[in-house]
């Protein structure tokens, strides 16, 4: 931001005496208008929280996806002689009660937890926002969709999941193979059972935004309902959605772990952060470090996503942008 970048106010406007578009505008025009997204990105980059959050998130992703390439101990490999060991060079995070290497289990678990967390959150968010926007925007759908939301809120989670497992486990396994099939099943079950709060929140906000005058104005220029939602409504309800997203990831990771107790989750020898944390809780007093790692990993992931979300929110808010 040097001095020469400074703009003089309103150089485009000439008094009536020179009432043609002033020359200044032409020169201005040589600077091509950037796309809004480029600009959001630009803003995002300069947001400290978002930057650290993004970096941390990247590190986590790299660690869980690329880490196993460098640290190729099999997470399910049992070494009974090395049970319950503390951190050492051979096992940086120690081992568990069967002598499995916690470090590689953390990475393997992270892969599952992060991908389940993010996909399930996206699914829940997508569903929730869709239902919320439709219900808030179309009066006709409101009653129906909100009653549907009530219904889903009322359904007890466990039996619902059991039924889903009953209905879909085998077909999905057949169609996508056991691992992929279970992944889909888990993501869908978490998504399908956690979109309701988002829907209600979004709907509430949409109801209020809908009555703003710019929506009326947009209507008068022939904006179709779809475009209205995408351009005018959604960007203005983004911040609760962002919050739901960050909270959603945490919920999804934890929910995944409780699914495994129903037999709906991944096979028992498949580590995930949630399960590692749960299993380690019994050993809290003996081996506190064992709860520490998965707990830390989940918290860091959620925290990083939160900062990412904050950054994105700020980047998308034109009133904050540019400051």
């Amino acid at each position: 931001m040097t001095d020469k970048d400074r703009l003089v106010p309103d150089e485009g406007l000439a008094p009536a005496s020179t009432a043609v578009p002033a020359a200044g505008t032409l020169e201005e025009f040589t600077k091509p208008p950037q796309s809004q997204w480029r600009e959001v990105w630009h803003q995002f980059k300069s947001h400290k929280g978002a930057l650290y959050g993004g970096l941390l998130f990247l590190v986590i992703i790299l660690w869980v996806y690329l880490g196993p390439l460098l640290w190729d101990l099999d997470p399910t490999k049992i070494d009974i002689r090395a049970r319950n060991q503390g951190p050492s060079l051979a096992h940086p995070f120690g081992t568990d009660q069967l002598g499995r290497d916690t470090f590689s289990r953390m990475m393997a678990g992270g892969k599952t937890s992060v991908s389940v967390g993010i996909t399930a959150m996206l699914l829940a968010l997508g569903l929730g926002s869709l239902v919320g926007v439709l219900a808030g925007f179309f009066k006709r759908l409101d009653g129906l969709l909100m009653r549907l939301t009530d219904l889903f809120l009322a359904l007890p989670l466990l039996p619902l999941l059991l039924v889903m497992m009953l209905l879909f486990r085998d077909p999905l396994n057949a169609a996508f193979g056991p691992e992929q099939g279970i992944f889909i099943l888990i993501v869908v079950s978490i998504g399908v059972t956690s979109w309701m709060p988002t829907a209600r929140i979004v709907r509430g906000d949409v109801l209020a935004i809908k009555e703003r005058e710019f929506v009326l104005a947009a209507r008068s220029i022939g904006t179709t309902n779809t475009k209205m939602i995408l351009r005018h409504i959604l960007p203005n309800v983004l911040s609760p959605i962002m919050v739901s997203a960050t909270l959603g990831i945490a919920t999804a990771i934890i929910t995944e772990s409780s699914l495994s107790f129903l037999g709906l989750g991944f096979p028992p020898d498949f580590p995930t952060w949630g399960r590692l944390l749960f299993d380690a809780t019994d050993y809290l007093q003996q081996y506190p470090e064992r709860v520490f790692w998965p707990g830390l990993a989940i918290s860091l992931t959620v925290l990083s996503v939160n900062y990412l979300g904050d950054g994105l929110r700020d980047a998308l808010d034109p009133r904050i942008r540019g400051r």
Partner: protein
Amino acid sequence: MLTFTVRRLVLAVPTLLFISLVLFLLLEFAPGDPMAQVPLTVPPEVKEKMREALGLGQPAHIRFWKWLVQFFWIEPQVLVDHIFGTSFSAGDLRVISWQTRSPVMDIVIQRIPQTLWVVGTAYVVGVLIALPIGIYSAYRQYSWFDQTGTFVSMIGFSVPPFFSGVLVIVVFSVNLGWFPSIYDTTHKVVDWDSFMIQLRQMIMPVMVLALQITAQISRFMRASMLDNLNQDYVRTARAKGLGERAVVLVHVLRNSMIPVVTVIALGVPSIFGGAIITEQVFKVNGIGQLLIGAIQANDLPMVQTLTFIFAVLIVLFNLIADVLYGLLDPRIRYD
């Protein structure tokens, strides 16, 4: 809006009936068997006899109808009898739990006090802490307060109660010995001392639950406040010479409440059933524990009744939220 409320209340009846049907079908369809907890030493023929005695032999639609009659017709009569000492319900079969063979509603009523004591308090405490945190974090965005708040609430939210609960028990009960690790549901508060005992046994579960609630609500509060802090009317309010407190707490807050009201209203029904894990960890044995126990034991009448009560609360509180929207933001129109 009165007509809106009335219409919604009227509409709630078929909605709830439909929900009860869906619940019933879901439970019917879910795998599981009330005999799951009977030891394997009991032979299958005996189990079959026990199932029949529970009425499982009858076709599903008859059982559903029976439940409807029992819940909507007989139980209210029992209530009336209870209050006025009449005897309308004498001889009628109430909704009976399969586990305990006793009327479901009696158990539910028995559980309400401890649920309210612990989960209700936690919710109120959580909300009361969350709102100021959210507001101040937004007002001083990216200050150290905000950063700490974000950090703590995110950690708080991402640590599941099955862990945080055990952690506080290990720290405060086992190591420090300050609080009991097991909640005494029979404890009665009669005087100051017994109140202190109650307080001591409540503190840990309330802490664990409130952490989650606070984390969630404060995040929504903060985001929503941020959306409104830069609006023009805030400038107007300042131009009037209002103190920052009034500007933020009156003008911005009211405009920011809609998403928060939703979250709070959504949370209220969960007071009665959402704190399953925490209740279990601290042995509070409230309604959440009742539900999870019933699900595990496949006690269908109990599960059906409890989930239906939740459904009623959900529908009710969503209606309240909707009415509140209208009151908070006069531009929202319902009719």
